Every structure is written in structure tokens, then in C-alpha cells.
């Protein structure tokens, strides 16, 4: 059940260009599952930036972690946060990744900071004795945070658009060659990447779960700020109906 807690930052580790892992000391943190997220902001922010920022759990437990990429004001402040700084953490929120279908090999397709909920998922697979395949794409080798960690718990394949690491190109290349009846896909990354992955999955009739992103104000279904268009012509609300959804339910061509 979701809970609002105040917790001090325990540690901030910079892990490459613009990426940081934040760890909180939160013994009263409720249990979170892979794919869920929290709404977070520092107490010291006062009235600006105003809204808490949605971040996926990188890990749960009593020392929850998030991986952040510096985008704007809020994430820039997180990137300079010092141990001891107080954060309000509201979570766990949203739908988790569903359990995998028995006997299928999971393929995790990650783009950039979208890797966070997939690392958490890979750990769950590891605990279940399943080794997932991870396809991890970035623009350059600077855009692959946590790839070493993934290498140790999954069968990792890396692609970069400039060829600075792994195969040159996009994740969809190697993905095509891996698809068959006994795999299923879990993806999180930029919208265009997820749309491409979802389209391929649909064509090849492979089950595909995606973790969506949308601007959010509340994170728990009351502001109605986070709609995403479904193929049915109705909206789902990312914070409560997602972020993890069946990719086939989403209208990836809707202008959003």
C-alpha cells in the first residue's frame, strides 16, 4: 500500500555523464515491486520546483534506490543532493511488471534511463533462477548507465547509435533476430523506441509489456494529468493503470 514517508538521502553515486544513483535510508518504506515508481522531492525545495518527480524504483526494500538522469531543474537538484538531505517519498505507486509466462525466456529491452525498472525486474528474474536476455541501447557508450551491473545478472547485448560500444545501430536490430514462440518482451525507454519494439512484437505475435512515461502531478490518479491513448480510443492513466502495460493496448501512433 502506498505511503508518504520522509527519508534522508543515504548516498548519491554519480555513475557517468548526468546519471546518479540515489539511495535512501527508509526503514519504514513499504515494499515495492519491479516496475512501480515513487513521487519524490526534497523538503528543501519549498515551493519550487513545486511538483514531486516520478521515478522508478531501481530497488525496493528499506534502502530504496532510484537512478536519475539530469533533465531539468528537479533532476539537477537531485544530482547535487547531499547525504542527510530529507526527501519526501510517496510510493509504491502504479502497476508492476506482470509475472512472466511460465517457460518463456524474458527479453528486456532498455533505452537510456529506462533501464531502472528493468534492472529491478532482472533482479527478480535472477532470484527466480531465470537468466533474462537484456538488449540495451543508447546513443553513445555514455548513455548506458548500470550496464556493468546488468552484465553480471543477465545475458547482456549492447547497441549504440554511434558504434562506440557493442553493435552499431538500434536495439530493434538484434531484437528481430531473437524473436520466436518461446520469448516475451519487457521494455522501457524513450517513446519512439518502445513504439518500435511494440510494433515488432505485434507483427511477430510476441507478448510485450511496456513501462510508460507521462508528465505527472499527483502520481495516484487524482489530477488526471497523465493520460495515454489506448487502441480502444479511451485513455488510460499512466500512474494508476500503468506504468507497466500490455504494449498491444497502446495506440503508439496517437499524438501524445
Amino acid at each position, binding site marked *: *500500500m*502506498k*505511503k*508518504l514517508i520522509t527519508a534522508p538521502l543515504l548516498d548519491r553515486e554519480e555513475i557517468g555523464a548526468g546519471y546518479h544513483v540515489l539511495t535512501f535510508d527508509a526503514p519504514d518504506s513499504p515494499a515495492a515491486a519491479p516496475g512501480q515508481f515513487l513521487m519524490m*522531492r526534497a523538503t528543501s525545495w519549498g*515551493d*519550487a*520546483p*513545486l*511538483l*514531486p518527480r516520478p521515478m522508478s524504483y531501481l530497488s525496493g526494500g528499506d534502502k530504496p534506490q532510484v537512478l536519475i538522469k539530469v533533465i531539468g531543474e528537479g533532476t539537477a537538484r537531485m544530482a547535487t543532493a547531499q547525504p542527510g538531505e530529507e526527501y*519526501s517519498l*510517496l510510493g509504491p505507486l502504479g502497476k508492476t511488471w506482470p509475472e512472466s509466462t511460465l517457460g518463456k525466456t524474458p527479453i528486456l529491452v532498455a533505452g537510456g534511463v529506462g533501464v531502472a525498472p528493468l534492472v529491478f525486474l532482472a533482479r527478480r528474474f535472477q532470484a527466480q533462477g531465470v537468466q533474462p536476455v537484456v538488449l540495451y541501447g543508447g546513443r553513445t557508450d555514455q548513455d548506458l548507465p548500470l550496464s556493468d551491473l546488468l552484465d553480471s545478472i543477465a545475458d547482456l547485448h549492447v547497441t549504440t547509435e554511434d558504434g562506440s560500444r557493442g553493435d552499431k545501430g538500434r536495439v530493434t536490430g538484434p531484437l528481430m533476430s531473437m524473436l520466436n514462440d518461446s520469448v516475451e518482451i519487457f521494455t522501457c525507454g524513450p517513446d519512439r523506441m518502445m513504439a518500435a519494439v511494440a510494433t515488432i512484437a505485434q507483427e511477430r505475435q510476441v507478448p510485450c509489456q511496456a513501462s510508460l512515461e*507521462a*508528465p*505527472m*502531478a*499527483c502520481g*495516484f*490518479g*487524482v*489530477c*488526471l*494529468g*497523465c*493520460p*495515454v491513448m489506448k487502441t480502444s480510443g*479511451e*485513455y488510460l492513466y499512466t500512474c494508476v493503470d500503468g506504468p507497466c502495460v500490455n504494449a498491444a493496448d497502446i495506440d503508439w501512433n496517437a*499524438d*501524445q
Partner: protein
Amino acid sequence: MKQSITIGSAELSNPVLTASGTFGYGLEFQEFFDVGRLGAICTKGLSLEPRLGNRPTRIAETPAGMLNAIGLANVGVEAFCTEKLPKLQDQGVTVVANIFASTTKDFVAIAERLARESGVLALELNVSCPNVSEGGIEFGKNPNMCAELTAATKAATDTPIWVKMSPEAPSIIAVAQACEDAGAEAITAINTIRGMRIDIAKRQPVLARGMGGFSGPSLKPVALRIVYELAASIGIPIIAIGGISTTEDALEFLFAGASAIQVGTASFIDPLAAHHVRVGIENYCEAHQLNASDLIGLAQAAKK
């Protein structure tokens, strides 16, 4: 000290409410605190038929504030009555139904539907939504239209009518007075002001609709000025809204002449904000040996 407040024919257990559109249908907050302890909650704006709402992007942040162009997405009055209201009643929540339509006829139809239910304390007429193409704010700018609407809905129901003001009316005082004359039991003020943001990289407005309603802490001085002016000009109670996050914010509005307040955007930043404000006012009253009703208008010049 006594916390109860009288708003026309309605009695509230205390002066703290939550603002429409920022508190869902109330049930979502039960995990955080006992919502039944609040004076009342105002529902998301209800329309005659369910509404999908606007295309995304619907929200954006501004300095100490935010913009929204939700477009009154809601379940519709029928689903509200059958699915939400019974649960709210079970949990002892006092409910104000915020209602919206683009014609007087539809406002009346919603009022009639809600009149068949027990447990709705008041109807708050949203004549001030900036985020829909028809009705909404055009009603709210015009004293005659507002008066006619107030009278028509009042004739359709025994439930008290409150009217929610747009800060963009050329004369809010004229609109509020017209509503008072037409039988409104309270004025709620204010709804959002239209604002916008532009995405530099995309060279286009951030919100799909271009503009949206501006709310949050940075709206407070404008709301406070309006409430202060209204309090000196009308006889019916005012329920204040606009950037209220803390007990101190709420006290400013009560001193300005509001009889009660609504917590809005603040509930997104802290889901317990309304609860904290309710407790804070109670503590203030104890410390100063005043009833909540004694706080109303303490800063009005006429009272000095």
C-alpha cells in the same frame, strides 16, 4: 474551541474543504488520512455524460505553480451517483458536488439527478473552467447568465447552490452579487487563471490545448485580493481557493473574510495537506481561544 462553520443552510464540521479536480472523488485519499474529518470534499467536476478530457500534454509546471488543461475528464453524474457517492457516504465523507455543463438545461439536469440522492451537501456550479471550448468561463464572466443559471438550478433542487467564480470576469463583484441576488448560498473563489508555457526545443506550446489553468502557491496573492474585495461587497459566505498549502495561508484567507477554504494543488505535493491545515487551524483556535467562526474577516478594514 468550536470548529463548525455555517455556510447558508449548511453546517460544516470545520472550515477546511478540498478543491474540485485536485482530490479525485475523495476515496483516493482514504489511504492517507480520514477524509471524513474534513469540512467537505468537492468532487471532480461532474458533467451529464462521461467526458474523456483533452489530449495530452495536459499539465506543466511553472514557478511555484502549475498549468492544467484536463478538460473536465470525469465519470459522468450517473456513475458518480451509483459508484462513488455510496462509498463516500459509507465512509462518512461530506460531499460537495462540483458540476459543469455548457447549457443551463444540462446544469439543471445534473442538479435534478443529484437531487435524487441523499448525502450531497451542496452543488458547486463551475462556471469558470478555462479548459473547455463551450460554456465554462463564458458563463462565469457574465452576471446575467450566472444569475439566470443560479436561479434555474436552485429551482430544480433543494440542495444549496454555491457558485465558483472565474478570476477573469471583468467584474467578479458584479457576478457574485448577481448570484447572491439569484439565491446562491455561497460564493467560492477562485478558479484558475489562464496561462501558458512554450517548449523552446519544439517551438510550440507545452500543453496540447495551448493554454491551461494556472494554480498553486503563486496564485495566492491574486486569490487573496479577490476574496478580500468580495467579502466587503457581498452578504453570503465566501469559500476561498487559490494557492492554499499551509495553515498560515488558510488563516490569511479567513482573516480576509472567507468563511471556509479549499486546499487544491497542494494535495499533489503533500496528499495530507488538507489534513494538516485542518489540524493547524484547530491548534490556532486553541492557542488564541477563538472559535473558527471568530476568525472570519478579522483583517477586513470595516471590522477594525
